[in-house]
């Protein structure tokens, strides 16, 4: 029997980061039951994963292989809990009204967003993740962009990996735009979080957009993007 392919997802447990991974797992369980799915994350993600797994088992018809996803617990504290510590002031800064001083303060604390843990904790999570990788021996590792221990590990260990981001495209392409457009054309990163989505959008015909994969309850079907910018 051909051994299954194995995909390992490395993610924080906050929904804002994990939603896209949960959606992908939901779909993969339905359309690729021959692929073994593994997730390494903090405790908060175990319950939603179990729900998705149970739902897929119930939906699988008799005779088809039962799919499930394997959860590997990382025992460090979660990203959000790390940001709530007094030494990481990022949550308090987000409460402030935007303006020159406050926005500058948020920018100066970007490292707290990118790496929320204490250095020794970070290494601990790195090692735990490394142990999961060694145990699972995945064919592909998928990492979300704020799970910094995972990003660091995959790069250092030379794994076959891909980033799966819930972000906007803008978050990753500004330095590449010609004529230093990042300086004068696009609003600076944290002065503008999410405002690209304030473009007027309208639900129009789906005809001419690239197919967008959106999981629909109970089945996975390709679906055209419902948005057209106006």
């Amino acid at each position: 029997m051909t051994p299954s392919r194995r995909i390992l997802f490395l993610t924080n447990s906050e929904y804002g980061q994990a939603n896209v991974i949960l959606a992908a797992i939901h779909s993969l369980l339905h359309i690729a039951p021959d692929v073994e799915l593994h997730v390494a994350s903090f405790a908060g993600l175990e319950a939603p994963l179990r729900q998705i797994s149970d739902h897929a088992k119930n939906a699988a018809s008799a005779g088809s292989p039962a799919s499930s996803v394997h959860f590997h617990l990382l025992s460090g504290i979660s990203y959000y809990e790390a940001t709530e510590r007094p030494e990481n002031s990022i949550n308090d800064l987000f409460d402030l009204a935007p303006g020159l001083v406050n926005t500058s303060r948020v920018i100066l604390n970007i490292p707290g967003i990118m790496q929320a843990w204490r250095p020794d904790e970070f290494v601990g999570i790195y090692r735990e993740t490394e142990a999961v990788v060694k145990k699972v021996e995945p064919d592909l590792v998928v990492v979300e962009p704020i799970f910094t221990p995972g990003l660091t590990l995959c790069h250092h260990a030379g794994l076959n990996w891909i980033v799966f981001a819930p972000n906007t495209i803008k978050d990753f392409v500004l330095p590449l735009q010609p004529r230093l457009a990042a300086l004068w054309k696009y609003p600076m990163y944290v002065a503008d979080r999410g405002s690209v989505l304030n473009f007027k959008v309208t639900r129009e015909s789906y005809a001419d957009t690239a197919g967008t994969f959106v999981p629909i309850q109970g089945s996975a079907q390709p679906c055209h993007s419902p948005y057209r910018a106006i």
Partner: protein
Amino acid sequence: MPFPVPGYLIPYNIFLNLVAVYMLVTDTRLKKTTQQLRSSIGADVNLITANELGVLKPPPPGLRLLVSNSPEIDYPFDTIPPYIIPCGPIVRASPDVAEVDPALASWLARGPTIYINLGTHLAATPKEAADMARAVCHLLDRADEAGYGGGKTQQLQVLWKLKRKVFKDESQDVNDYSGAWQEMRDVIGRLVDADRVRITNWVTAEPKSVLQSHHVVCSVNHGGASSFHEALW
């Protein structure tokens, strides 16, 4: 800040970029983490954060990024590198609200509903909540005056998921209006009693389940990507 950045704000935008440069030069958090990594794991480890995926510089060669968004609804760019693969928007499947919470489903069916959910992490002070409550009252009163919804049987109603910012021995229970929360009661109590407004700190159904009930006419949210895409979906 608008896009494209208007002329008079360009100096401000450049200033903020310089603040980011200053941050990179003076930050100690990432440096300390790198030191710890190098002494524990190996001298050649590099800390990879989202900054090294494209936020501040291009990602390592060969790495691809699946991005849950679509060029159609993102900013226009002169160049999108081939290693960026837009594959979105993606919303997570969720069960029907009738399966998860039949009582809520019946209540939603009573009339056009506004769903207020500002995300898992945001907590409101009594003053902030009372201010928002005033806006809700004003809206509902105006809606009733205008006969919105078709009269008594189909009135505008509000489902408000509210997380309180509490200190020490204050209560998270949204039905406890003691102390500073009395102002909230004064403002919106009559609408809560009439069941036109439901304030709760926990909704069993996921936001998308509520939204896909087809009874929500307006989603008030914090603008997070999931909330945005779920509302449009």
